């Protein structure tokens, strides 16, 4: 076996230690630990046939406290946005005729409604925090929020808007939450994924 050189390019802030390369089959299995910064796969590599390294990180989840603190915020913000939109649109709907010729008056009425605008602001904030959380937390940590949101939105509709929610609907909502939990429990990435960094031999 001839000695070779495998270079893996990491983000400048990342410090890697304890690098270890092992050839198995047609693959190099590369293990290393990161003491600073974060890395995202695929990593760029030189000295390999494909020039890219796929894989995944293992170890304790990062920013656990931050994730737990923000989780209830997104569980509330998304449903709150929908409930505010609903409250605003009920008012708009009662005050306009839904004729195609009235498009501009309807649009102006919608986008001058305080409830609709607050609802949009709430949803935008929700998406922003959600995306932000996804940059450090695992998808499976963040995603159950979407399952809970179906229950929270109905609870808010019942408590705040005084909607009548029949028992059968609560049963249906429970089944939906269970189904969404099954879905989010599956790996979000199906194209590739491994616990170790892998790259093809040159």
């Amino acid at each position: 076996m001839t000695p070779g050189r495998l270079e893996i390019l990491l983000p400048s802030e990342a410090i890697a230690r304890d690098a270890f390369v092992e050839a198995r089959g047609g693959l190099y299995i590369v293990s290393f630990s990161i003491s600073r910064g974060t890395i995202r796969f695929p990593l760029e590599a030189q000295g390999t046939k494909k020039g890219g390294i796929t894989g995944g990180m293992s170890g304790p989840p990062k920013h656990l406290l931050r994730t737990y603190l923000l989780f209830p915020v997104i569980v509330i913000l998304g449903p709150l946005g929908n409930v505010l939109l609903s409250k605003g649109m009920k008012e708009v709907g009662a005050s306009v005729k839904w004729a195609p010729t009235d498009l501009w008056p309807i649009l102006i009425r919608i986008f001058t409604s305080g409830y609709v605008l607050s609802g949009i602001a709430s949803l935008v904030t929700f998406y922003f925090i959600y995306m932000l959380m996804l940059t450090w937390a695992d998808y499976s940590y963040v995603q159950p929020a979407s399952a809970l949101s179906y229950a929270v939105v109905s609870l808010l509709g019942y408590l705040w808007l005084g909607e009548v929610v029949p028992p059968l609907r609560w049963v249906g909502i429970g089944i939906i939450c269970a189904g969404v939990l099954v879905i989010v429990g599956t790996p979000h990435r199906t194209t590739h994924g491994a616990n170790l960094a892998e790259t093809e031999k040159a």
Partner: protein
Amino acid sequence: MREFLLLIAIVVLGTGGELCMTRGMRTIGEVSEFRPARLARFLGRAMLTGWMWLGLGMMTAAFFALLATLSIENVSFVVPVTALNYAVGAGGASLILGERVSKRRWIGVLVVCLGVSVVWLSRR
């Protein structure tokens, strides 16, 4: 009937928009850095693809369909029914994007559909 069509529009246009955007983003590549300047440049490049604009248009239409539905229906009915986007999303991802959808995910989709049917039956 009007509510039914609007709900279909929310689910199909919303999920269709997401699928188009996914397709548009895939043509650009993977985001590996989350610095604002890099993200802005990435989004700028993504916006040059037709898929992104198609997706954006569909998602805007879905949002207006949601607003129209919320003006006539209860939010505790509308939002749970939109969980159907998991079914449309899984179908679309496997048919259009060629993604592999696991058996467990399909089971989850079936459970969601069952729940939506029960919510539908609870309609006043």
